[in-house]
């Protein structure tokens, strides 16, 4: 059960709680954890930035840092991890990766679930996923 687990993450403390809960699951199931972080490309790009600094303004540099940190955290606990940096909307990025890797569980933080009408990331994931969804209480 739960051999292929997908979790969405950014650099927030609530995302770290969701990742920890996802690590707990794969630690028990012996499955693989897919950590997904989404980014929006910057409109301005690297134009006008001196060449030697261009790497530091790559739109996905912050995302890659988050993925590195969270993946390392999972590996420290013995989990098998695959990081995914995705362009676009965070909820859609998680659903896209879940479909691509045929996930049997998607883990998300509960941040925003108390807003019943407005769409939130966990709400979009809970309604859009075709596999099991674990909404981790993070607020």
């Amino acid at each position, binding site marked *: *059960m*739960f051999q292929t687990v997908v979790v969405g993450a950014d650099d927030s403390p609530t995302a770290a709680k969701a990742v920890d*809960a996802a690590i*707990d*699951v794969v630690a*028990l*199931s012996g499955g693989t954890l897919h950590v997904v972080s989404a980014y929006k490309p910057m409109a301005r790009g690297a134009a006008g930035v001196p060449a030697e600094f261009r790497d530091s303004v790559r739109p996905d540099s912050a995302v890659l840092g988050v993925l590195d940190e969270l993946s390392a955290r999972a590996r420290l606990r013995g989990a098998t991890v695959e990081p995914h940096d995705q362009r676009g909307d965070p909820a859609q990025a998680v659903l896209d990766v879940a479909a691509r890797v045929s996930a049997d569980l998607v883990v998300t933080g*509960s941040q925003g*679930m*108390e807003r*019943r009408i407005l769409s939130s990331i*966990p*709400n979009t994931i*809970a*309604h859009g996923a*075709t*596999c*099991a*969804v*674990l*909404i*981790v*209480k993070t607020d």
Partner: protein
Amino acid sequence: MYNRIVVGVDDSSTAHQAFAQAIEFAKMSGGTLHIVTAYKPKPVNEADIPDEFRYSMASTGEADVLLRRLADEAAAHGVASEVHAATADPADALITVADREGADLIVVGNKGMKGKRRMLGSVPNSVAHRANCSVLILPTT
């Protein structure tokens, strides 16, 4: 990881699919299942029932039979359980039991999470939005 797991059931096949997965998850996690079913008391006038049959009309009858059967099923998989029959809306019953037992997880089937009912307050949707603990929504067909 999850020590007290509340799971909602009724006598439907989709609820049973979710329950079977909940047993598997509780076994993996090493937790106790709190099996909850909500029922509506039947409007029975006891005066109309012969004395010798009155016990069989107790409104908890069907709920108790269902809960006993599912508790046995959990036990057969080595999972400890407690049962709760509640006269309340199903989502309210799950949240009330979860709060009272200090549950760390509520497990529900995904019935009503897709299509037009998603706007109408299905049980998983209502639980997902109102729970004070984590929620696991399991796929059923």
